[in-house]
């Protein structure tokens, strides 16, 4: 996956309203924008916009239901997204480990110098 898609994914789940929507979608299978808006402190129009963002990064899928659409979590896509987020987490773990090593090396050097000078 490209960096651009990573950014879109991160910004999609970075929004608290969209995370709350994902919680509801994960808790019970299928929602229309109308029913989601009844459970959230935002308008139906805002919910529809948020669903559009989640749909574009593939976290939800829309299926037609008469005049409306019902949204559900796309499990395969969510799995891929979670793997991606975990990979980013692992990269940060590696970075933090490296920072820790550097910090420890500096501390060690400083301690040795202090001993020699003391």
């Amino acid at each position: 996956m490209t960096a651009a898609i990573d950014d879109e994914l991160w910004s999609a789940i970075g929004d608290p309203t969209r995370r709350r929507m994902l919680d509801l979608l994960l808790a019970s299978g299928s929602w229309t924008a109308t029913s989601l808006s009844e459970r959230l402190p935002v308008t139906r129009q805002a919910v529809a916009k948020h669903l559009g963002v989640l749909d574009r990064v593939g976290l939800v899928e829309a299926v037609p239901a008469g005049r409306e659409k019902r949204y559900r979590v796309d499990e395969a896509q969510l799995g891929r997204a979670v793997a991606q987020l975990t990979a980013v987490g692992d990269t940060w773990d590696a970075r933090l480990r490296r920072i820790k090593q550097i910090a420890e090396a500096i501390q060690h050097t400083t301690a040795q110098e202090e001993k020699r000078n003391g």
Partner: protein
Amino acid sequence: MEYASIEREIHVDAPPEVVFEVVSQPEHIRDWWYADTDVRPVPGSTGELVWADGDNPRANAVPMSVVAVEPPRLFSFRWTHGAGETAADGNSMLVTFELVPSGAGTLLRLTETGFRERGWEIAALEKQYQEHVVGWDTFVPRIAAVAERLAASR
């Protein structure tokens, strides 16, 4: 004739026996149509297709009545008649799935008729017809995907 029927045809990389199961068995109907149903694939079996919406598990309940079951080549049912009504020409749509062996797979043909026979005003007829078109555009490819996954898992 305008709005007379919806027809779709798709090649499925799964044998007719598998595709037949997918279009007719409740556990597979749930997979591709996201509907719960108590209708059994037996001629005359009646029940409902039920869709959930959020907290409401019965947000949309639509009557369904099986017409013909001829495994593995034909499955048809009527739906969208009024609750408590007996499905018949004029009060419901007739959906027919025909399955034709095609190489190692199946040619799946969907036909839905009965729109004009409902006696709706043109605006209502057009709206209903378009909603069903959009529906089958989504769900026919899903039938193929579910059948292919099922065939691959066996």
